[in-house]
């Protein structure tokens, strides 16, 4: 398979430097508002600072992929004597918790690294260098890009099965 170069975007999180201000949540929600910067609402932010003040936990976590089902088990990390929340490091938008769901629609939120911007807004806004943006290039196998249409068909197949979808397509073709 042919090799291509892929840009990997990364945000390094130095949680020890976090002063817990939650400015990242504010700027994220403002940036992703329509029109841009028209509303502020940390509940819509794609980054949240998981906080347990007296336990010395301030942990910025970015919204990751949506998953329809929760894991079969849960995890709890204890690091340096600090017990983090159940699934605390997980970025998934999952039925087991309210994190990263739009408060009105319940739709999943996902960090898009502020696509189109040179540096994600939360990184720019964090004046304590908790969030550091890094880019690197990787050689990867060339993949066929899945189009929106293909993704839609895949999702229909996932839900209804290949046969049903094929029947449906056949019927539509006949109708035309």
């Amino acid at each position, binding site marked *: 398979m042919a090799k291509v170069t892929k840009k990997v975007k990364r945000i390094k999180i130095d949680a020890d430097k976090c002063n817990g201000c939650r*400015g990242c949540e504010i700027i994220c929600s403002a940036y992703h508002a329509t029109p841009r910067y028209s509303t502020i609402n940390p509940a819509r932010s794609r980054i949240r600072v998981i906080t347990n003040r007296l336990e010395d936990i301030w942990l910025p976590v970015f919204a990751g992929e949506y998953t329809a089902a929760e894991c079969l088990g849960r995890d709890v990390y204890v690091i340096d004597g600090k017990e983090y929340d159940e699934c605390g490091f997980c970025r998934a938008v999952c039925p087991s918790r309210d994190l990263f769901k739009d408060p009105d629609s319940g739709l999943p939120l996902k960090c898009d690294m502020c696509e189109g911007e040179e540096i994600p807004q939360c990184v720019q806004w964090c004046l304590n260098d908790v969030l550091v943006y890094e880019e690197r290039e990787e050689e990867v196998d060339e993949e066929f890009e899945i189009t929106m249409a293909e993704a839609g068909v895949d999702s229909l197949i996932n839900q209804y099965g290949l046969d049903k979808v094929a029947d449906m397509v056949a019927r539509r073709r006949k109708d035309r």
Partner: protein
Amino acid sequence: MRYAEVGYNLEIDLATGNIEREETDPGLIAAHLGGLGTSVKIHWDRVGPEVKAFDPGNLLIFSSGLLNATPAYSANRTVVTFVSPQTDLLAYPMMGGFWSAELKHAGYDKVILSGKSPDWIYIWIDDGKVELRDASHLLGRGAVETQTLIQEELGDRNIQVAAIGPAGENRVFTASIEQGRSSASRLGGGAVMGDKKVKAIAVRGSKDVYLARGAEFMNHMKAVTEYVNFRNANPIPDVMTILSGIGSPQEMVHTDEKWHTENFMWGNARTRRREFWTDEISDLWASRQHAAIKRLISCYNCPQHCGALISYGDTPRYMAKCFGKLTYAMAAYVDDLDFSWRILRQATEYGVDSFSTPQILAFAVELKEAGILTDADFEGCPEDNEGRFFWLLEKVAKREGIGDVLADGVYYAARAIGNGAEEFDHNTIKKHEQLPLKLGTLDPLYFLMYSTNEKISITQIEGNWPQAAFPSREQRETFVKDWPQLPEETWKEWLLEWEIRGEKAIPYWPTPDISAKIVDWMEMLHNIDDALCICAGMASFCLKPPYHIHNYHLLISAAAGVDMSEEDVKKIANRNRNLHRAYNNRRGMTRADEKPPEDHWKRRFPELEEELLTTYYAHKGWTYDGIPTRERLEELDLKYVADDLEQRGILHHG
């Protein structure tokens, strides 16, 4: 659509349990901005001068400001207003933390509490829905632990809780309202909350807050950000460390306390300890501080590190900030920060102000040493300095034994104890304990700030003008070179001419006329901050701050969509201040009350002081007695205030 503000207040009648969501007048932004400004207006309209602190008619208002929950850095203050049990005037202590932004996201600008609850409750504001919940199981619990207990009970650690401790329950006049790493401490807000039987207010919100012209607002914030970065990288030279940066005093960061410990008056504002800061103390205190501070933390949307999570040996964890680090140890004459970290935790759980309370405890110790208080009053009290302070603190917080009378503060305690105790009340203004400072020569600026401000607490009036003259011309030139915050370029000359000694030094320089202008400017900045609920640490309380008179109006206009010029903002701040002043005048405050303690300076100048006060009043547009004139009130669209003051005979026609 409402911008920057939410447009709704939450009204709770505690006596009946009636809860209302009241839409507010959109015109109030142009008239009073918000925060302290709009709260003062509510007190003016609804709480007459006959209402005392513990009357059901006293309103207790928790308010956000116009810029809370916007991306403006450090817009995180909550201003709490009420008639104070200590001064009988309208008090407005403020707290940082995370509460006010959460309140706006829950759909309210203010929480207005009236009446008294028959039973102990806490208030739960959950995204617009409001419940009054039983708090009987929280009685006697500390102010910090109450916050955690409520979060656990409601199953969400992201709920922001403002709570009182036992001191508030017992209506101690120095009772604070604690929240996260912050507290609204001065003048007894915790006591009024306790009197209303409200143990806490918990809030959680997920609603939008709107910016009128978001892109424009962010553009202005870009300039503010650049300046924040610049100031953090470039501390001001030739001033003491604590004044060199931005943010509120970085007491949790800095360990060098030579200046505070050797220049303030300790015990009951009594003793200056000139040789205190030895190498040995310096090493010991630095090691104690590093041992205690687990992490430096901030309030909502603030890049600074004014607070800290304290984790000290076996002492249960809590959060601290600012000056409390020093006040208990120095008031008790315990030369070890070890004591500070332990007693500060206890004081935070009891929920008491760490400025006034240590002075009250030291006052009791002095009275004991003078034989005015007796062994019987101190029965069961340990002999050592540490043990005595812990014992006294508990007595005050619980109003037990001698603590009951002390809990009313030095002024009232001195008069209740009598037998010469009044002589020991030497550090109060308008019945309120002040910073423990006693200095040499009268300073005209500080004389005015101490005497006249509605805040009744010097630390939140001063800020933008240097505390003292720079010794050399060169230093002055360096300082004024880059000073865009100043209202007029010509003011630089006043600083350049300001000498340490001679004719152009205190008490005669700045002149009364110049002093009036400088003080007026500094207090105006505080009034703007308090309406926007921006932390004074990033604006009015520090030298060369990121927010100032030349950029506030840009941020306000873009956020609220109400276009304002610099002059408009000045006028609103002036209106708010005059309304507050008139409110206090209506409660009986006059020129006679406006004086610093007699021993505040060794060298006093009675004639000059009279001239200073008269000049300042004239500059403000007030009468000889310190009452706003009809002319000034009408200029500020406060005709209704002038009418009221005249009707009451406080202001005389013509």
